[in-house]
């Protein structure tokens, strides 16, 4: 393992770094103290219990479900793309990452529409929020993404074969 670079400048910089750390740490604790005061003074206890539940569930869902799922998906992907070169594997993973992120941001819109948009005249619903056909757009986005990724994987494969042939000839 390469050791991180610690140049000669480090020793002369140490004083500054130490002071920056102390200042940041103090400011951080002050901000946390201010937040603690704010929560206790301005937010009713019943809401604080609700928030504590949300914080705990967020940790559990993220650390207990979402990250393990990405690990499983990554492992599965390694097997599925075993025959592909490193660049092609990168393209497949990159496309899936883009798709996953867009789904993470886009899917809640679909759920919110189901929950929030009462239908019929006189419902008083706001017709200027959540009006997109998000499910269709998301589906279309995935289609374009997968086609583009497949084309890029094929192009890299063809280019690789072509350049190997040229190298052999020359």
């Amino acid at each position, binding site marked *: 393992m390469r050791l991180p*670079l610690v140049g000669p400048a*480090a020793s002369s910089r140490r004083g500054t770094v130490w002071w920056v*750390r102390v200042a940041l740490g103090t400011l951080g604790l002050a*901000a946390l103290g201010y937040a603690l005061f704010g929560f206790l003074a301005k937010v009713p206890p019943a809401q604080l219990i609700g928030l504590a539940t949300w914080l705990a569930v967020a940790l559990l869902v993220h650390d207990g479900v979402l990250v393990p799922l990405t690990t499983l998906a990554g492992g599965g992907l390694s097997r599925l793309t075993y025959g592909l070169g490193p660049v092609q594997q990168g393209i497949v993973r990159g496309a899936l990452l883009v798709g996953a*992120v*867009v789904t993470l941001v886009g899917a809640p819109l679909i759920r919110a529409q189901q929950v929030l948009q009462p239908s019929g005249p006189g419902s008083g619903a706001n017709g200027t*929020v959540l009006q*997109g056909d998000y499910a269709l757009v998301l589906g279309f986005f995935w289609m374009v993404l997968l086609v583009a990724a497949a084309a890029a994987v094929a192009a890299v494969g063809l280019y690789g074969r072509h350049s190997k042939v040229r190298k052999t000839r020359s």
Partner: protein
Amino acid sequence: MNGRFSSPLRSKRLTVVLGRWLGIAFTVCFLTGLFSHLLQDPPAWMLLLTRPAWLYVATQGIHVTTGIASIPLLAAKLWSVYPELLRWPPLKSVVHAFERASIALFVAASLVEVTIGLLNTFQWYPWPFSFKDVHYWLAWVIIGSLALHIAVKMPLILAHWSRPSDAAAIAANPEGPVPDSTTVPAAVKRGTGHGWSRRGFLAALTAATGVVVLTTAGQSFAGLSGLNLFAPRRMDTGPQGVPINRTAAQAGVADAAQAPDWVLTVSSGSVQKTFTLAQLAAMPQYSYGLPIACVEGWSQGAQWRGVRIRDLMATVGAPSDAELQISSMEKGGVYGRSFMPAAYSQDEQTLLALELNGEPLDLDHGYPARIIAPGRPGVLQTKWVHKVEVI
């Protein structure tokens, strides 16, 4: 257990790069959010700017868009340090326990903050607490935790600030040129045939973040409205081509606002005057192109026409440095009334608007009269106004 979650991609260098991006995003969100919070309830010392009129469009658009961008950045940052969660033994000392608890709070607060922020832009509130209070105080938890985290991790951050290849090359040959950025990344060189390179991962993350930014920022920035696929708001939609925060039906004012006996009451001390809609329309009318910008991040430019607030104040002899209380026919809540410091009421572009885009205000836009002032959050642009008082 820890080994199962290992990936050749994870490294301290990757975490430092992601941490820098996320740290910048969170700081931008914090500052723009604090600005918005202060504007909604301005302290006496605050300098209130009415120009540029699009100031709040920019700051709140940046707030919401950067918040959306921080979703993939946060996910990637947390993914890069996931094995730390499973490290054994879980607690080595009291200080270590304290550090882990502070990180758990940092992570949980960040996850909840970006989630409720996103859902708030949908006007969806599936939680048992006040969004405004909790979003604000969690922001202080996050910025405080961020500063503390940087202070604790600073030696690691500094050690991995530069690329390892560059750092090693510089160490080996301090006189030589810095290696260019197209050198083959370590994970590829290792030829594991598993996964991808750090640079490839960062490129994909940049692409993913770019896609969510480009497909949502169009609700705030007109230049990107053509790419607006995944934002809850669209520009140029709604009655008179302007989106709505709350409809008259939602506010419960539909009947009162259309009552033929509606009058506007303007008062200063013991002086009080009432104006019918016809009397207001007979006063000098001014027309300005001003954006309306909501705390939820969407904004819309429009042409507003009506009576200057300072002209209305003059009719009751109100002093020019007076603060106003504007009351809506909507009862209670943050929309029921707003306060207007002199910086806004004395501005020539601050109107009691009667018309929007060349027509009388639509009922959902605040008929018969609403406030429009430059550079203020939409929540303060009170609709269905029936009283303007000097306080």
